[in-house]
Every structure is written in structure tokens, then in C-alpha cells.
């Protein structure tokens, strides 16, 4: 029953001495991201209100930070970092491919229906 843990995060930038200290380190990192998210959500800086690919830059930042959090939860709390490559790809790539595909289709369609509401002959302001 060997339990080898890879102890470095950020591509080897930070290396922890034990698995326990790595857990606390990741907690600090996740908390920091959550604090940044909440602060941005309350302040809503005017400079981040511009649009990029049809969505506010602020929203893009939120989504990217969420994915970063998800990565560290999966890799360090769920020990994906310690699994073999085949298992990791089986789980992660399958999910990511299907989710990206589904999200793309549904958002595309939602945007289309919105354009029908706003520029077609449909009245909804009553």
C-alpha cells in the first residue's frame, strides 16, 4: 500500500514538505481566490465591464478563477495528481469534452432565441 504523493504545485514552483502541509497550502490558495472573487463581485470595477467574445471581462475572470479552483480541488483534494495518466485522462478529458460541447450548443441556441425576441416580430414588453 504505497501512497506516494507529489508534493509540488504551480509546476514545481512551490514544493511542500509533507502531504498535510500541501493540503493547508492549497486551502490558503483556494481561500485567496474566493476572496478575490467576492471582492471583484462587490466592487465591480468599471474597467472590467468591457465585452470580450460577447461576455463581460469580469465574467470571464470569474469563470477562469472557478476553473482554477476546480483544478486544485480535483488535483490535490481528490488526489488526481497522484493517479496514473490513463485514469486522469479518462476522467478529465471525457468530462471536459462533453461539457464544452453541451455548453456551446445551448448557449448558442439561447443567444439565437434572444435575437428572435429582440429583433423579430415578438412583443414581450407588456
Amino acid at each position, binding site marked *: *500500500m504505497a501512497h506516494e504523493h507529489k508534493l509540488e504545485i504551480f509546476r514545481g514552483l512551490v514544493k511542500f514538505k509533507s502531504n498535510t502541509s500541501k493540503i493547508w497550502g492549497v486551502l490558503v490558495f483556494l481561500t485567496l481566490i474566493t476572496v478575490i472573487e467576492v471582492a471583484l463581485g462587490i466592487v465591480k470595477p468599471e474597467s472590467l465591464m468591457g465585452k470580450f467574445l460577447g461576455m463581460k471581462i469580469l465574467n470571464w475572470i470569474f469563470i477562469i478563477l472557478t476553473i482554477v479552483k476546480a483544478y486544485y480541488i480535483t488535483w490535490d483534494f481528490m488526489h488526481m495528481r497522484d493517479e496514473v495518466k490513463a485514469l486522469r485522462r479518462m476522467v478529465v478529458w471525457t*468530462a471536459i469534452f*462533453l461539457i464544452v460541447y453541451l455548453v456551446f450548443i445551448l*448557449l448558442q441556441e439561447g443567444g439565437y432565441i434572444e435575437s428572435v425576441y429582440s429583433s423579430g416580430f415578438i412583443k414581450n*414588453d407588456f
Partner: protein
Amino acid sequence: MNTTVATGTEGKTWGGGNKPLTASYGKLMMWFFIVSDALTFSGFLAAYGFSRFKFIDSWPIADEVFTHFPFLHGVEAPMYYVAFMTFVLIMSSVTMVLAVDAGHHMNKAKVTIYMFLTVIGGIIFVGSQAWEWNTFIKGEFGAVQTKGGNILQFVDAEGHRVAVADFAKVETGTRTQHESKNGLWFVDEGALPAYTMGEINNGLAAHPEVLVRTQIINEAGKKTVLSREESVKQLKDNGRLFVQGANLHVNEYGSPLFADFFFFITGFHGFHVLSGVIINIIIFFNVILGTYERRKSYEMVEKVGLYWHFVDLVWVFVFTFFYLV
């Protein structure tokens, strides 16, 4: 009799008699369950995104919906409580992974303590979610639903929300609720709204400082406030029903779809947390009874841990898409 068939793959990675993924059967099955459950949640969240893109110019602004904090009445505290909930769940994820780690070292006392803390964290989270639901269902200011299903809210000149109860002119002698015992026995009627449209119309006419706010988001990212004349006219022409709080039919904060998705997705997630707490409790007692000590492996803690972290993972996304974006 030797029935073994030589396949020519003996000794290779996938030739059999080997664990190519170096993970046990139970852990693999937990991973595959997590993948399928992740797809279920993605389906829900993508459907939420679909509806939101469909009504992109009139969707409720989360900061205006979830402004409450327990024991702080009348204080606008958007997101602080849900940030607290997020932190509780991440924290209980940490105690869970510490329990797994202690399990690897066969340290029964530590596993017990950490499992206990994880259960407590889960219970705090579910309780917080119940409070969040309760606040959302009760609502705060009340609003009017129009014939077209849109929501009209009320604000003063500075743009602060005004509760319908503060300006509606209450009349007596309006109609009573129909009950099957004193009317048609085969027809039922739900509870009557607290205010009739006449009462709200008269109240608005008597309070010149109150304006109507529609759900259309303007260029500045704020909800549109109508002028005084437009307010009176809009309410009179199109107002149909007084709405307080949110349920599956109406939602005082805007599109009913917002409430539907909120209840469904956070409800489904809350159900996962609840089942996680129950499973954690079972494992906790197994740890105390020494089941895994006798088994000489705490792998069961690890498998339950995977599920528990997954619940945390989903919450990270729910948090983003319901409260931040």
C-alpha cells in the same frame, strides 16, 4: 486439463492480472460515478445558461436578490453569506482530505476527529442553504407581475427599493378567498394575494415619490426606472398580480425561470450534500467501531472523500453561475 488460452498479451500492461490504472475497483467506480454526476450537473447549469442567454437583457441581478445576512436585518450584504457558505464547504473538504491522509497512516484517532469535523461542516452548509431558501421564498419588497409575465418593482427617487406594503392603500370589504365549502365544491382557489391591483394602483397615485422599475437592463447594467407618468400608466395598463417572494410559479425578483433553476440546482446540490453527510456519518461510526482497523485499510474513507470533494467542486461552479456572473 489446462484450459488457459494463450493470447500473446501476457505480461503487457493490459494483458490481464495487472492493475494498469493502479487504482482499486471501488475507487475507479467512484470516479466513473463522479464523471456521470458531473455531466448531470453540467446539463442543469448549461440549461440555466441557455435560459439566461435567452433573457439576457432582463435576467435578475444576483446582487439585488441575495442581499441578506443572518441577524443583520435591513443591512445590504450581497454575497457575504454565500461566500461564508463556500468557505465552510471548502473547509470541510480540507478536513476530509486530512482524514484520508490520517487513514493512510492508519491513525484511527485522527481519522475520527477529521471525519467528525467534516460532518459538522456539511451540516452547517445544509443549514445555511435552508436559511438561504427561506429568505428567498419569503421575499422582501414585493412586486407586481404584468399580463406578459414581467415583473414591476418599486423604487423611490434615489433608486432605493420601496416595499409594496409601505405605499399600497389597503381597502376593506374586498373579496374573500373562495373555498369549496361555501361555493362551488369542485373548484379550489389558492390564497389571495396580500394586495389587490386596485390597492396598489391607488397607493401609487397617492405617493408621487414612488416609481416603477422594470426588469429591462439598460446600458449602465442597471434595471430601467420609468418616469412618473409612465410608472402610473404601466402599472394601470399591465399590472395583474401582486407577488411576494419566489416560488415555482412567480418570482418577485424577475423571471420565474431564475427561481425555478435556483430551487432545482441548489436543491439538487443540497440533496447531494445531505446524502454526503449521511454517508460520512456512517463511515464515521465505522471508523469508531474499528471496521477499517480490522480491514487494515482506510480506503473506504478515501472513496467517500472523493464524493465529498466532488460536492464541493460542484458548489464552486454553482457559486460562480448563480451569485457572481
